[in-house]
């Protein structure tokens, strides 16, 4: 299990996006977004950057590694 905290849900909701909409925009499945939000999946750098661009927040604020 990756040792990090994920604030994606907060930033996603701030942009009024559903998991499905975000998933389509970053090219993954909804289940992947769901696992990211639960910090159960460690994303690739590309996916992290894509998410950060879509939710308009810095990567280090979305994914906080302890």
């Amino acid at each position: 299990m990756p040792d990090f905290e994920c604030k994606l849900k907060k930033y996603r909701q701030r942009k009024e996006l559903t998991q499905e909409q975000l998933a389509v925009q970053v090219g993954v499945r909804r289940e992947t977004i769901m696992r990211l939000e639960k910090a159960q999946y460690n994303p690739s750098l590309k996916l992290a950057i894509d998410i950060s661009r879509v939710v308009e927040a810095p990567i280090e604020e979305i994914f906080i590694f302890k």
Partner: protein
Amino acid sequence: MKRTKIRFLMILGLICILIDIAASWYSAMYNEGRIVAPMDYSAYVFRIQDLPMIASVFLTWIYVLYLFILLVKAIIKNNRRDRRSSTSRKINPKLGFLGFLGFLGFLGFWNYGFNKNMSAFVFFAFFGFFGFFFEGKMSNTFRDERYKENKVKAQFASMEIVMSILFILTLLLGRGDLMGNPEYTLIAVRIILSLTIGLYLLLSEYLLYRYDHDDETAESED
């Protein structure tokens, strides 16, 4: 494959069967059942009356070879298409029932007792077709990075298990005299190798499914 081509192949198959039946009938009626009945081929001498039977066997082999080539071409074509596709291949989970063909492996014991032939043990590998149950459930899934990662993880875990089994097999059967008989060792090796291949096919699909669905009950939209 087009319906006309399937019909063409079926007609060809029927023609082959009819030719085989006719040749067998001819051999039984006018050629003392040569080639049809079991015979000692080490002392075989060609007779012109053998020709229909030889021709029918030759035609059947050509037909089977043609089917085999078509099958290989179709597999290569499908693999290329799958690699280009962004989703996993479409498979009906019911194909998993083909896994029951694995029980044909038990015919090997009967066959070995009958004529010392061990080839039927290979059917144990068909237990791997049970993996289609899980592949079918993951059919047409979008292959994002998590899917690809899980697939590699599942294949690696399956490979580790299979390699461990093979390592133990090598240690235990390495001496080659199971119950004091090298033939029993060969049978055991054939069975375990076939089962291991089946296990790899089944496990890699099962683990991929598990990794992808491990806490599905907890899934929620928002």
